Structures are given as C-alpha cells and as structure tokens.
C-alpha cells in the first residue's frame, strides 16, 4: 500500500545518507547536461530535497501504479488526442509523469517579469507597425520583415483595437541552457495552447500525491480562467455594459478542442463554432434556443485566415461572413486581434532585444538565442557552412514542424535542408543548438527515471491596465532520449510545474 506516503509527517525526516532512494537508484546523470534537480557536484538542489526524499521512500512499483492511475483518469476524462492509423483512429493521452518540476520564487520572478516585458514590447510593436511604422523608419527592424510576411494584414492598418491590445494572450517558450540562464525560444501570440494541460496536470498530481503539497507552498494555477475572463470583459466594445463573451473553436476535431471546451466551461461562457454566429448590420449574434443573442467579445482559437470568408480565405467554413467588418467597426472585440501573427514570426523574434529596447527603453530580462537570418547573404553563407551545429527553423510554422537539428542529420539530409534553404532563404532562420536543461522524468519503457530535456511555456494575459502571468506554466518534456523537440505534436510529454511562494 501506498497510504503511508500521504501521511508521512515531514518532521519524521530521514537523513538522506541513510536511505536507499529506490526511485532514483538507477538514475544516470550525464554531467555535461544541466540537471534541474542536481547541482554540478551531484548533490540534490535544496528546493528539490524534500520532494526527493518523499518520492524516494517508495518503490518504483508504487510510483508506477500511481502514475497509471493518473493516466487512466486523463483517459476517462477524454483529455486525449487522436492518432490516425491506417485502419483505425486511436485515442492517446498526452504523456505525463507525476514527478513535478519546481521553480523557486527567485527564478520565477525573472521568468515572470521577462514574459510581461516581452508581451508588452510585442504589443507596442504591433501597434506601431499597424500605425506609424516608426520602428521601420528608424531602421531598427528591416521593412521586409513586414512586406514579406504572410501574417501581416493590410486590413489592420490604422485599426485601433479596444484598449490598444493586440496580443491579449501570449505563450512564451523559455528554456534553461547549460549556463543555467533562461533563454526564450519562441513567442507564441497567435493562439497559444496548452494552458488546460497546466491545470489538468496539477489536478492529477493533487489527486495522486496530495501529501507532497503539505511540504511546499505552491502557487495555484486554477485562477487562469478568471483572469482571462476579466481581461476579455475589460476589452469590450464601446457602449456595451455587461459584455457577452464567447470562445470560438474550429470544432471538436481540432487537436486543441479539449482546451477550448475547458476554457469556455471554466469561464462559464459559450463555446461556439463559426456556424453558430452570424453578422447582421455589422453586429455579431449567436443562435441560441431562444433566438439571436448579441456577442461582444470573442476569444478566438481560429487563425486569421479563417475568421471571415468574405475578407480572408473564401473557402473557410470555420469563420463567420462579415465578422471582420463588425470588428473593424468596433462592434465586437477579437482576442487576440487579427494580424498579431506577424510578430509571431521567428524572424521578428530575432529582433526582440532591439524591440524591447526601442519601445520600453529597458534591457531584455530574458535572453534571446542568437539567430541567423538566411535572408541575409552573409548569414546565409554561415548557416550553409555550419548546418551540423545549428538548428534550422522555418519562420512561420508552429508546433515544432519543419525543424531540423544539424548534429543529428545524415549527409543526405543536410544536403536536402541546404537545398530547401537556398530555395527560399527568407523562410528559414538558424540558431546554435541550445542544450536544454534536463529533468528526471519517468520513462514507461524502462520503468525508471531518466534525464530528459525540458522547456517551459508561460502564459501571459495582457490588458490595458493589467498583466497576469500564470504562476506555473507548461513544462514540456522531450520523451525520446537525447531529443530536443518538446512539442506535443512531436511526441513530447509534460509535467506539473510548481512555482514556490517563497
């Protein structure tokens, strides 16, 4: 039985040197990697000490049984994604393990301030490039970042979104390099997803191992929905008293549908599809059992190109004809605003230090990874010559698609990547291969804990007079040994992430 685990009072502390820590007895630590729980001398870091002891008192079998229970609870709740095989569709849960990641207050403070700083700077950047374009005129950012970006919407020129906010919701992907410093890998400001998993992971861990929470003062993650709703209500159109907020989803076959339904449910608002809405005289209504009801704020999880077939992609069946005209007229708010995708571009990312400095006159709190633009001849040359030590990323893809990591490519693959880059250099950027920190992660196949690379996606909510970063975030784990790509679409798992109060 595992009952004891729940009730072991922590004052019954057992000296580390005396116990055989079963769970970690076979943990192999590669000293070249930055391990989140061990320092470089192989000693457990202080914040992890209690957790290490608590978990360590129990056998791997206990742990496996709890982990399986947590997984089946995910499965039964339908927190799954679909894998399309040749003959059938399989449902799978996102891999998860019960050993949490801990971030102490001091480190978190940097991440939080850094995330807010970036969100604010990006918002000012978006306002500028859709209005006076000062940053271009001052030659801080090259004009072709905008002219050749498919995500720059001419229709947004001169539009003032309510409250001046474009990127209401941002997801910032940060990693810790082997120098122990945090670096930002990407800013996601189109429709960043994953926040529902943060909350599900926490719920699962609380159910399985509630005892461990007695020993740590951990910030809650369940306040995301209320903060999001408060923000959405605050950017209501002019003249609306109590706004009706909805979440729009591409539908139940979308891979993030669970998250869309989760957010609608926890905010207590309707989850709509394009076909549930219509526009009349530039106002938006939803079709309810009691007839039409006006909609004021739309948290949209549908990409720009699909929101209005009359204005953008005419083949879209996900959108609402006339929605953009209603938006432009100021009768409905869209969050995030249309056209934010241009700043999501990985080529814009490379200018983030300059962008932050330009608008906020501050030094970046979080580091950027040095990036080479294949669109610049001299940098292209460097990239082509050093592919084996670089990560090549397409500028406008999300979800880890199209990424090539130089040191694991075969000769033939390198040639193929080179050819692709030469074909359209503007489409690619390259970065040095960052060594993401590793964290002990339970691996099903070997039934033991092993080092795996992790990153962290933070969720920032930005309003006119408000900013909120969810104190937790999604720690994503690259489950394949040695793999650096953590995206769930590429076989990544996740962990509960604890931010400590002190």
């Amino acid at each position, binding site marked *: 039985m595992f009952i004891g685990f729940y009730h072991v009072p922590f004052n019954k502390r057992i000296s580390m040197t005396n116990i055989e820590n079963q769970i970690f007895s076979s943990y192999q630590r590669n000293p070249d990697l930055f391990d989140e729980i061990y320092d470089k001398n192989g000693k457990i870091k202080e914040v992890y000490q209690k957790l290490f002891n608590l978990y360590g008192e129990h056998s791997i079998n206990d742990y496996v049984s709890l982990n399986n229970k947590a997984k089946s609870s995910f499965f039964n709740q339908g927190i799954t994604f679909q894998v399309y095989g040749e003959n059938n569709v399989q449902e799978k849960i996102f891999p998860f393990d019960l050993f949490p990641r801990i971030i102490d207050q001091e480190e978190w403070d940097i991440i939080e301030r850094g995330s807010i700083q970036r969100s604010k700077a990006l918002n000012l950047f978006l306002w500028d490039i859709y209005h006076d*374009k000062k940053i*271009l*005129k001052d*030659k801080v950012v090259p*004009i072709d970042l*905008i*002219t*050749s970006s498919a995500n720059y*919407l*001419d*229709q947004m*020129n001169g539009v003032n979104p309510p409250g001046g906010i474009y990127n209401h919701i941002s997801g910032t992907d940060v990693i810790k390099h082997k120098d122990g410093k945090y670096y930002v890998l990407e800013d996601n400001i189109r429709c960043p997803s994953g926040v529902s998993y943060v909350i599900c992971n926490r719920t699962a861990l609380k159910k399985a191992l509630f005892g461990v929470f007695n020993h740590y003062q951990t910030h809650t993650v369940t306040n995301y929905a209320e903060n999001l709703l408060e923000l959405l209500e605050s950017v209501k159109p002019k003249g609306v008293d109590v706004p009706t907020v909805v979440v729009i989803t591409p539908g139940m076959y979308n891979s993030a549908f669970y998250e869309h339904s989760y957010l609608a449910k926890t905010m207590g608002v309707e989850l709509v599809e394009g076909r549930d809405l*219509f526009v*009349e*005289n*530039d106002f938006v209504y939803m079709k309810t059992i009691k007839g039409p009801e006006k909609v004021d704020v739309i948290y949209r999880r549908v990409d720009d190109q699909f929101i209005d*077939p*009359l*204005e953008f992609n*005419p083949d879209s069946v996900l959108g609402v*004809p*006339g929605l*953009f*005209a209603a938006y*432009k*007229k100021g009768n409905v708010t869209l969050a995030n605003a249309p056209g934010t995708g241009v700043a999501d571009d990985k080529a814009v990312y490379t200018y983030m230090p300059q962008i932050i400095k330009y608008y906020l006159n501050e030094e970046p709190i979080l580091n950027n990874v040095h990036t080479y633009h294949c669109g610049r001849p001299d940098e292209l040359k460097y990239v082509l010559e050093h592919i084996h030590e670089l990560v090549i990323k397409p500028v406008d893809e999300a979800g880890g698609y199209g990424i090539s990591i130089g040191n694991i490519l075969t000769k033939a693959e390198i040639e193929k990547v080179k050819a692709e880059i030469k074909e359209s250099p503007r489409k690619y950027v390259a970065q040095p291969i960052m060594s993401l920190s590793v964290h002990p992660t339970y691996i099903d196949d070997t039934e033991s804990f092993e080092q795996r690379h992790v990153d962290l996606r933070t969720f920032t909510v930005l309003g006119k007079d408000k900013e909120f970063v969810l104190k937790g975030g999604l720690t994503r784990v690259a489950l394949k040994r040695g793999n650096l790509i953590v995206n769930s679409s590429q076989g990544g798992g996740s962990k509960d992430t604890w931010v400590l109060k002190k």
Partner: protein
Amino acid sequence: MKTMPRDFEVTYKAENIYDDWVHDAHWQFLIIPFENESQHEVQIEFSNSLYANTEFSINGFGFKTLRVHPKKKFKQISFEAKFKFKKEEIDPYDFNINSDLSVEYNELEHFDFKITHERFLKQTIYTKLNSIQDLLYKFDTTVSIFQNLENLNHWIYKFIQFKTGVTKVGTLLKDLLLNKQGVCQDFAHLFCALARTNGIPTRYVSGYLNQNSGYMGDSQMHAWVECYIPGIGWKGFDPTNNILANTNHIKVCHGKDYNDCSPLKGIIHTGGQNKTTHTVMVQSQQ
C-alpha cells in the same frame, strides 16, 4: 472655367442559377462608385429577386460594400443595382512636373517613402514576376516618372493583345507573358508589376468604363491602375486603352491586385453546378 459635372447612371445586374437548392448563401458586392473629389452625390438603389434584406457595410480596406444573405432556400437569384452620381470633367494632364527630375527620383529612394507606400510596392501573387521578367521594362531616368509611366502604358498596350476567353480570374503573369493575350485585369496586373519593380507605388483599380466612349473593355467591370508620383500624387493609367484615366473611368475601389477588389464574393453552400452572368451599363448625360 470650371465645367458642369456630368450626371452618370450605372446599372449593374447579376444573375445566379444553381442546379441544386441553396440553403445558405452570403454575397458581398464591391460595386458602389467611390466618393472622391471627382465623383460625388452617389445614390444607390439595390434590389434582388428574393426580396432579401440588403446590408451596407465597409470592407477591410475601407470601401463600401453591399451584403445579401437570403433567409430561405432558392435555386435562382438576380440582383440589380442602379447608381446615380455626378462626375466632374477631368483633365488628366492638369499637373506640373518639377523641372529638376532628380527631386522626384530621389523621393522614390527615400526610406520613409518606401515604408509609407509599402502596401503598393510589394509583389502579390497576381503581380509576381521572376527576376528576368522584372527587366522587361526599365525606366529611363532622363525623362520624368510620368513620362515613363505613360510609355509603360503604351508599351503594355502594344505588348498584350486584348482578347477575352484566353485568361480568367486567377491567371498569373507568367501565363499571360506566354500567350500575350488577355483582358483588362491582366493589363492592370502587368502594369502594377512593372511599375512596382521600378519603385513606383501602384494600385490596381476596379470600376466601370463608360462604354459609349468607344473604349475597349467588356460589359462587365473594368480595371486600370493608379500610380503615385512624388510631387503630383495618384495618377490613373488605363493600359487596356493606352490612355490616362479620365471622366469615363468610374472608380469603385483600389487594392494591391484583383484579390482586394473582387466585385462579387459569394459564400455558397450547394452541390451541383451554377451559372453566373453579370452585365454593366453606363449612361451619362451632359
């Protein structure tokens, strides 16, 4: 002395016939004459055979649209729009060119100028040329920008033969350049492409052409271009007719290319085939 404005009347008709019932349809018309200094007092009459409600709106680029969304199913629908307005007589040559040509050419190179006019300097899918085709028409900087554009207008008029049925909406320049035959959209797209590669902000214009004037065009919407010349402003060129845009050119809207100006957009959910016909009639009185 200022002449009296002319009264114009444009009648636009469209008819759509479907094999199967249509249960859900949205149309958006971008056909209302644009109000500016030379076109004003626009009056609009618009009706459809289903008596469905007409909504007035403004599209993403700020032009007025008409929208129709019938509430019952149908197999056939026709639309009729009548626009009455006044139009000033235009002398397209009424402007002065700075005698120091370097002033206007220097302005083109100015960074702020490029940023301000970024939208009408970039390539789009319909105005895309490859690096060799870019050289098809090079400006002669010893003459004025206006003169170059007029020459380009003439060059395209000679280079492309007006012929319907060869190209269609969505034909790319690379295909046009193979056949060298096309209609007003193709002339306008080629003009946009070559003027932009020479650094001139150029916009595609959609509108009506007074057919009684004897110009080329068909009984549908016409297309021409407007170029921004430093010191002068936007000037209209109609390469299909080798003329400058004048009183007979009734502007509806402008954009980067046809995509921004499509006169009729329909979101229709139906199976089977459909047939669409449009006619435009322009009448004017002195």
